[in-house]
């Protein structure tokens, strides 16, 4: 996240904050006092923990460095999707909870985006699952590793496009949401967390950053799995870390360039963009099914 911000700044002719700035901000927020609205209920206090916990659990289920995953037996693709949706759902509730107008506005927009984006996530990964014959993410990675030609199959490419668009939507990047804006009226994700402060805000910011990492690893490892450690030996793990970093840098650069080149879509155009991604995902499933 820091990397994207820094690259954007350089592309805009600014110097930019250092890459590790988000960590500094987290430390700052953890040390700050928490201010909670009088109107807020327990839901408001519980949400940061639920959101953070759900993305942390997701990281265990997503192949980030190595397969087979230690928690393979616990959950598969569907669990990942539902866990992510659980966080979004509670965040929206928390946005509504204190009764501030921006929270409600953000929540309604977020649900619109989520309702369109989540099926695409599931469908795009299903396209791969069809090829692998399993909804287990670890097995999908393993399958692509053993059959490199499938990485450039039309199903894979369509699914990659779909998931990339959804990544932008789910993590609140341009052209769906503008993470750099201060204008409450245009916000989606930021509007929901406007009422949060201190360590609660830190948890939510952190969760958002981890979510971005999860999506980037999904993009990187599901579609270009090389480098992912198949056996838990030190040498392959080092290789896995390096390859993951390279993938993340490439994806971050792609997002930064994209965000510099484009403007934010008018809110009512967002569903159109997400429909495109859904259609791509659908095409991916169809083609993997037909070409299997």
């Amino acid at each position, binding site marked *: 996240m820091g990397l994207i911000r820094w690259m954007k700044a350089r592309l*805009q*002719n600014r110097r930019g904050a250092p890459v590790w700035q988000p960590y500094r901000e987290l430390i700052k927020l953890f040390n700050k006092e928490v201010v909670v609205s009088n109107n807020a209920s327990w839901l408001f206090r519980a949400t940061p923990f639920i959101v953070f916990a759900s993305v942390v659990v997701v990281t265990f289920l997503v192949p980030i460095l190595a397969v087979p995953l230690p928690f393979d037996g616990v959950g598969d693709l569907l669990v990942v999707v539902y866990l992510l949706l659980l966080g979004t759902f509670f965040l929206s509730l928390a946005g509504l909870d204190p009764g501030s*107008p921006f929270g409600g506005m953000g929540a309604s927009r977020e649900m619109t985006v989520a309702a369109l984006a989540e099926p695409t996530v599931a469908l795009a990964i299903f396209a791969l699952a069809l090829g692998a014959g399993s909804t287990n993410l670890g097995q999908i990675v393993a399958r692509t590793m053993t059959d490199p030609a499938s990485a450039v199959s039309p199903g894979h490419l369509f699914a990659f496009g779909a998931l990339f668009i959804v990544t932008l939507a789910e993590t609140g990047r341009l052209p769906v949401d503008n993470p750099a804006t201060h204008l409450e*009226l*245009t916000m989606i994700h930021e509007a929901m967390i406007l009422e949060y402060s201190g360590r609660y805000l830190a948890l939510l910011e952190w969760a958002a950053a981890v979510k971005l990492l999860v999506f980037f690893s999904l993009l990187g490892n599901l579609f270009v799995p090389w480098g992912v450690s198949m056996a838990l030996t030190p040498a392959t793990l080092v290789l896995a870390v390096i390859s993951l970093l390279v993938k993340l840098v490439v994806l971050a650069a792609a997002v930064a360039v994209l965000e510099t080149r484009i*403007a934010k879509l*008018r809110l009512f155009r967002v569903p159109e963009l997400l429909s495109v991604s859904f259609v791509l995902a659908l095409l991916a499933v169809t083609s993997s099914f037909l070409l299997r």
Partner: protein
Amino acid sequence: MSERAIARLSGALADALAHDVTDAHVVRSTELHCSVRPAAVPALARLLRSEFAAELLFMAAADRRADRAGFEIHYLFAAERQAWLLHATALVPADTPEISSLATFCYPASRFEREIYDLFGIAAPGHPDPRPLVRHAFWPADYFPLRKDAVPRDFTDDGRAFPFTEVGGEGVYEIPVGPVHAGIIEPGHFRFSVVGETIIDMKSRLYFTHKGTEKLFEGRDPAAGVELAERISGDTTVGHALAFCQAVEAATGTDVPDRARHLRVVLLEMERLYNHVGDFGMIANDTGYAVAHSHCFRIRERLLRLNKSLTGSRLMRGAIVVGGVRTDLPAGLDLAVELDAAIRDFDEIVGLTLENTLVLDRLDGTGRLTTPTARDHGVLGYVARASGIDIDARRDHPFAAYDRLSFRVPVHETGDVKARTLVRVEEARESVKLIRQAVERMPAGPLSAPVRELPAFHPAFSLVEGWRGTIVHWVMGGPDGRLWRVKVMDPSFLNWRPLSYALLKNIVPDFPLCNKSFNQSYSGNDL
């Protein structure tokens, strides 16, 4: 041209309103000054509208109870694209301070009459919308700050809520925003009535920045009024200072030297340029296109530094004085070359931004202010020119050296954010051409002329096309040669209200974009 129009006008006044309009005389060749019976003002306004296509531009009240046993109300009428102006004065008695309202057929009059009631306690019976306008909610009901005998008092919060119009209906909800905003901007409260994401009504509550500027002018030496005028709206330093100085010069009969006139053009256009460049970046930023924003601010910074080397102040404070200008062009500075480089840079950014289809999609058709609505509200400046109203005080009522320079007034018809953006881009280019011409043709000579004493109770005014639109300063001297009454109108006073109309049927996330494309001043609106 204007002599003929004025002759026709005085003829018509003598025919139709012989008993109501008296003492008509021509001042400074383009202004017809007269006195009018208060009850006959609506008849006068209707005659001017039907026969001369002239509309009310400005109203000012002055407390003359000490020497004339009443309040004077001054009306200024002007017709589109014509140089002549009619200045009519009505005297209302002190014991029954009432004027005949023009508000039933003239929207700007409605704003002015409400303001006059709030500040002077002069009522306008029959006004369709007599709510307070500039009046602070905590002021006592009998407190009228611009009366000469007003004494400052302590105010406390009475706990009453501000009565907003409620919009009912299924699925309609309200979004309140401000007055404290997330950015470093002035205070203003906006209340949206929304169905889903679509705005069906927007009420703005402004007037959080009352500073008593007009009261502060009173009793000042005219030369000391300039620093106050410069601070009316921070981004319009030159515009307001120039309007104030020209009004004082008109009252005292001062003839400003030619060199100073050309230098004033340079300063006013520099102000227009840096504001247009900066705002273009802000509009692009509100669409999420941050590249244009950072580059426009780089260019703006370059222009501000140029301002500093021109005048010693980045905002050009202290550059204009009554009678002329303070400083000459610095030796060794090639203004034309510097500006050519800056505008080439700006053109490249504009090209990049407007070629981006996503940006264009956000600007196109957003926040449309139709020509009839704009005309009804008497809007000024680029907001008017983007809605197809071809007005520009630099051309219509030439001041400084504009009558000797050639320039184009860009006009667009569509009235959307894109039109306002394009008008400003084109104006920025014209500004560079104007500065180049002014520097080339600048004659040698003195920088300022001596100023005579301000005559007592002789109203004078001046119109200046600031970057935001037409600024009017109206000045009257007192018996001691000091300022008795100064009335200031920033274009924001008339341009704020139509924003609500431009927003109708737009979606909430587009409000910041619409607002930025209007970019009116909160401070200049609330003096």
